[in-house]
C-alpha cells in the first residue's frame, strides 16, 4: 500500500471508515452538512452554479457536465419533477457504485436531496440492480434513519423542503443503464431506449422533467459543496475535474478499486498503484470503459487519463472498468469476449445493434476458428463503423469499440489469424497445435496416457507424435511432460 499517495478519495471518502448502517457515523464525518448548508443558503441557482464551476462531469460514462444537466432540469417548469439515481451498474467486473452504496449510502441520499432542492423536485428514485442485495438493504436502512433525523422526508431540517426517496429494482439489463431505457423500465415498460430529444431533463419519468445522475457523480456532490468548487476544480485536468474510481482488474498484481485524480497516467495506475504486471510478463494493452470501451496499447501509457484523452485514443472513460492484459492475451479473442457481452445485452430495438453486433460476433468467431479471410477483416471494419454510425443508443454506438481499437492497434494479430491461421498469443484453440520435439522426447508415455482422446502415439522409449486431426487442444499432455518436449506452435 506504499503507493496510496497517488490516490485521492473523494467519492470513496467514507467507505471503510464508517459503519454504513449508522447515520451518526456519517454525520460525524460532516454528513448532511452540505444539505443543511444548501437549504440554509436557500439559493438553488448559486448551488447549481457551484456545481457547474466545479467542472464535475457524469461518472456513469457519458461525461456530461453535471451542473449543466441540473440547470436544464431546473429551468423546465412542471408541477412535478424527479431526481433519479442510476445504480444499474452493469459493466462486467465493475463494482464502483456498489462499493459506494454499500459503504456510504448516505452520501448518495444527501446528494439526491440537494439535487431535488436545486431543480425543484421532491421525489427521488434509485434504480438499483436486484443483484445488489446488501446495497439495497443498506440503502433502505439509510433512508429510514435519514427520515428519523429529519434529513429526508417532510420539512427537512425545518426548512419546509420535502424530499422522499424510494428504490426501484432492475432485473440486470445492461441497457437499462442508458437513461431513457432506465426511465422506461421504471415506468413499467420494456427497458429499451428511445430517441433523444426529448432529454429526460425535459420529458422524463411519467413525462415529467427528470434529472438522472450516476451513484459516483452523486457521491461527489456533498464534498464539492462543503469544500467549495475551487477546491474540486483544482484537482484534475483542464476539462476533467476531480477524481475517478476505477475497478482495476486483469493481469496485474494489485487488483481492486482505486480512486485517482483525473490526469494520472496509465503507467502510474498500472505500475505504481497496480504494482505492475503479474508474473513479470509484458504489458500488452489496457481496456478501459467497460464492454464498449477500447484497448489502449503501450504508446498510451503516458497519456493523462481524462474524458477527452481517452476518447481521442479510441477508448472511453465509461463507468470505470480497467482491465489490464499481458502478452498471453489474444486481442481478437478479447474483442470477441466483449462482443459476446453486448450481443447478449442489446435490447434488440434497432437493427444495427440487434443484428449487426451478432454478425460482428460471428465474424470474430470465424476468425478465431481459423476460417476467416482478408475480406472478413474488411467487413469487420465496415460493419463496425456502420453500427457506430447508425445505432440508436450509447450501447450500440460504442459496442464496436473493442473491435475497432484492437484492429487499429493489433492489426498484425488479426492478419496472423486469417493469413497464417495462427494465434500469436496462443489462445485460440482452433489455431493451436501441440507439437512434440523428437529431440527432447524420451518416450516415457506420460503424455499418451494423459491424452483423453488417444491422439498421441509412439513406441516406448521412442519419440512420440501427436495426431493433429484427433487432438482437441486441451493441453493435458503438455502439463504431464516432465522434459519440456511439448510446445505450442
Amino acid at each position, binding site marked *: 500500500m506504499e503507493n496510496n499517495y497517488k490516490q485521492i478519495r473523494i467519492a470513496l471518502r467514507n467507505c471503510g471508515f464508517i459503519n454504513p448502517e449508522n447515520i451518526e457515523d456519517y454525520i460525524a464525518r460532516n454528513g448532511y452538512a452540505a444539505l443543511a448548508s444548501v437549504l440554509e443558503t436557500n439559493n438553488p441557482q448559486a448551488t447549481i452554479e457551484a456545481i457547474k464551476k466545479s467542472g464535475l462531469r457524469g461518472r456513469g460514462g457519458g461525461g456530461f457536465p453535471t451542473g449543466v444537466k441540473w440547470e436544464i432540469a431546473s429551468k423546465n417548469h412542471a408541477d412535478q419533477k424527479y431526481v433519479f439515481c442510476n445504480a444499474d451498474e452493469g459493466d462486467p467486473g465493475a463494482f464502483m457504485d456498489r462499493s459506494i452504496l454499500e459503504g456510504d449510502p448516505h452520501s448518495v441520499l444527501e446528494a439526491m436531496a440537494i439535487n431535488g432542492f436545486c431543480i425543484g423536485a421532491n421525489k427521488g428514485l434509485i434504480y438499483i440492480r436486484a443483484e445488489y442485495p446488501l446495497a439495497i438493504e443498506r440503502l433502505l436502512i439509510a433512508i429510514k434513519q435519514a427520515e428519523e433525523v429529519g434529513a429526508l422526508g417532510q420539512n427537512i431540517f425545518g426548512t419546509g423542503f420535502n424530499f422522499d426517496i424510494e428504490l426501484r429494482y432492475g432485473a440486470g439489463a445492461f*441497457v437499462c443503464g442508458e437513461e431513457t431505457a432506465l426511465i422506461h423500465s421504471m415506468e413499467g415498460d420494456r427497458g429499451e431506449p428511445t430517441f433523444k430529444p426529448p432529454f429526460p431533463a425535459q420529458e422524463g419519468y411519467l413525462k415529467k422533467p427528470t434529472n438522472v445522475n450516476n451513484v459516483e457523480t452523486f457521491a461527489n456532490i456533498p464534498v464539492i459543496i462543503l469544500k467549495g468548487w475551487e477546491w474540486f476544480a483544482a484537482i484534475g485536468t483542464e476539462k476533467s475535474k476531480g477524481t475517478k474510481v476505477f475497478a482495476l482488474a486483469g493481469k496485474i498484481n494489485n487488483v481492486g478499486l482505486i480512486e485517482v485524480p483525473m490526469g494520472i497516467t496509465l503507467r502510474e495506475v498500472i505500475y505504481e498503484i497496480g504494482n505492475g504486471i503479474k508474473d513479470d510478463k509484458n504489458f500488452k494493452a489496457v481496456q478501459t470503459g467497460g464492454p464498449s470501451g477500447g484497448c489502449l496499447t503501450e504508446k498510451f501509457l503516458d497519456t493523462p487519463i481524462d474524458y477527452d484523452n481517452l476518447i481521442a485514443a479510441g477508448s472511453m472513460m465509461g463507468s470505470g472498468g480497467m482491465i489490464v492484459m499481458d502478452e498471453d492475451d489474444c486481442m481478437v479473442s478479447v474483442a470477441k469476449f466483449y462482443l459476446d457481452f453486448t450481443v447478449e445485452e442489446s435490447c434488440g430495438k434497432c437493427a444495427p445493434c440487434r443484428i449487426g453486433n451478432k454478425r460482428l460476433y460471428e465474424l470474430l468467431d470465424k476468425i478465431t476458428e481459423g476460417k476467416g479471410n482478408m475480406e472478413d477483416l474488411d467487413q469487420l471494419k465496415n460493419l463496425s463503423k456502420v453500427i457506430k454510425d447508425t445505432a440508436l443508443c450509447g450501447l450500440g454506438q460504442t459496442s464496436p469499440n473493442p473491435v475497432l481499437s484492437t484492429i487499429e492497434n493489433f492489426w498484425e494479430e488479426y492478419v496472423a489469424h486469417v493469413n497464417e491461421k495462427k494465434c500469436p498469443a496462443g489462445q485460440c484453440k482452433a489455431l493451436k497445435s501441440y507439437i512434440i520435439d523428437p529431440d527432447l522426447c524420451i518416450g516415457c508415455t506420460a503424455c499418451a496416457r494423459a491424452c483423453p482422446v488417444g491422439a498421441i502415439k509412439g513406441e516406448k522409449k521412442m519419440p512420440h507424435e501427436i495426431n493433429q486431426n484427433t487432438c482437441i487442444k486441451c493441453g493435458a499432455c503438455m502439463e504431464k511432460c516432465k522434459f519440456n518436449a511439448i510446445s505450442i506452435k
Partner: protein
Amino acid sequence: MDNIKLTIDHKEVSVPKGTTILKAAREIGIDIPTLCHFELAGMNIHNHPGGCRICVVEVEGRRNLAPACVTECMDGMVVKTNSIRVLNSRRTVLELILSDHPADCLVCAKSGNCELQALAIRFGVREIPFQGEQSSYKVEVSPSIVRDMNKCVMCRRCETMCNDFQTVGALSAIERGFPAVVSTAFNQKLSYSNCTFCGQCVAVCPVGALVEVDHTPKIIRAISDEKKTVVVQVAPAVRVALGEEFGMKPGSIVTGKLTAALKALGFDYVFDTDWSADLTIMEEGTELIDRLTRHLKGDKDVKLPLLTSCCPAWVNFFEYHFPDLKEIPSTAKSPQQMFGAIAKSFFADKIGVKREDMIVVSVMPCLAKKYECARDEFKVNGNPDVDFSISTRELATLIKQANIDFNSLEETPFDSPLGESTGAAVIFGTTGGVIEAAVRTAYEVITKKQLPKIDFTELRGLEGVRSATIDVDGLPLNIGIAHGLSNARRLLNDIKEGKSQFHAIEVMACPGGCIDGGGQPLHHGNSDIIKARWEAIYEADRNMPVRKSHENPSIKEIYKDFLGEPCGHKSHELLHTHYFDKAKVIEIKLD
C-alpha cells in the same frame, strides 16, 4: 408557428418548427427510404420507434448519422441524404436485416406487396454479404391470422396498433438482443391471448410476418364440388376497395364487376351482405326502440346505451375486457351471421337444398369475421351458418388466378332474393354508418313520419370519438360513435362509471370502420386511400334508389313470409345471439 430554414441536399427548405427531416425532405421531393416508420394521417396513428435505421441521414456537425424519421429540423441545419457515408450505412443496415430474414419471397403472402422486398429492389441488393444464425420461431396459425415471427423486422407497427390504437395488448416485444421479436406474452398462441383478431396488425405489417389465414383453396374445392350449392355474400366495404387490387383508383365503386367476377368464379348464388345489414337494422332498430320506450316509461332495469354488435373484433373486445357489460350490447347477430342463418334455413328450404349440402362463403374486409363464423354458437349440429370467410385480398387472388379480366367485366346485379339492399346498408362499411342506418329507420318508426332529410351528416366523420344529438320529433336521441378500440374503451369506461349520457353507441374496431378493415387491400400508410373509400361509401348510398332499411321490399317480404315480426320468436331463434364472459387469466401452455 415559427418557420425554420435548412438545407437538404443543397436545396433550401423552410418548414414549421417541429417538422422531421423525413417530412421536410419529402416536401421537396426527396424520398428518404423508411421501413419501421408508419403514420396514418388524420387517424392519430403514429409509429416511429426509430428502430430500423434505414432512414439515416448525415447532419453537418453531428457525430453519428441521424434517423430522419424522428430527428427534428433545426434552423440552419445542413442535411445530406445521399452521401457515400449515408448510402453505405443504409445499405449495410438493409443487408443486416435481410441476413436475418427468410428469403422465401416466392411463396410469401406479402410478395409484391412487401416493403422490405421493395427496399431490396430499390437498393439493388444482389447478394447478402452477412451469413450467420437466423431467427427460428414456430409459425402459428390462429383462426384468423398466421404469425411467422421469423419474418418479423421489429418495426413495432403491429405493437402500436395493438397497444395504442386498440388497447388490446396482445402483441409486444419479447426477448432481447438478437432473439428480440414482437409476439404475445410468454410467446403463447394468439388464441390464448386477448387478441380480438381485428387484423390491424396484419394491415400494417410491412413484411409477411403477419398475414391472414388463407381460405382460398377451400373455396376452390367447394365450388368444384358438384354436390354443394355454394352461396356467397359480399360485405359493403369490399365494393369500394377491391378495385385497388386491379389498378383502379382508390374509391372506385365496383359492385357490378364484383358480382360478375363472383359469378365467373362459379358461385351458385351471389348475394349481398347489405341485404342482411338491412335485416340487422330491423332487429337492432326494434331493440333500440323497445329499450328507449321502456326507458321513457320509467323502467329502471332497461340497459342503455344500446351498443351495436356487428363488428366481431369489438364483440371479442368487450367479452375479454368488459364482460360485466355483456348485457348491454344489442343481441342482434352481425349481418354476416344473419345472412348465414337465413341462407341455411329460409333460402335452403326455398331451393330445396339440404343444410349440409350448402356452403356459405362471405367476402369480408375483415379478419375477425373468420373467427366469428367459427364460433360455436353460430353452428347447427356442428355445421356453421357461414362456412368460410375470405378477405377482400383473398378474393382478388382468386379472381387473378382464375384469369378473369376484372376491369373489363360487365356489371351484373346480385341474385334474388338475398341480394336486394338499400343505401342504409352500404354505409355499414364505415364508422357511423350502422347508427345512421338505425336512426333513419328508428325515426320513421317512432314518429310514423317521413324523414325530412335522409343524410345525418352530424354522424359522419373520421374523428375517433364523435357524438350527436338527433331530434326525433322532440325526443332528443344521444348518439355516441367510436372507431378504434381505444376510443371504444373510453366510452365503455364512462358507462361503467355511470357517466354515459348516450342512448346508443356504435363501435367499429378498425380505423374508419370496415373500409380499413384487416382484410382490405394494403394502404401502406396512405390515409388518402381510406378517405377515398369513405367518400365512395356515401356515394354508393346516394346512388341507391331506396335508402332506408325498412323500405327494402325484400326485407318486408321475408318478415311477411317467414320471420313474422322484428324481434319476434323466429327472429330470436335465427337472428339473435348472446355473449360470454371471456375475461382471461393467461395460462402458460407449453406445447
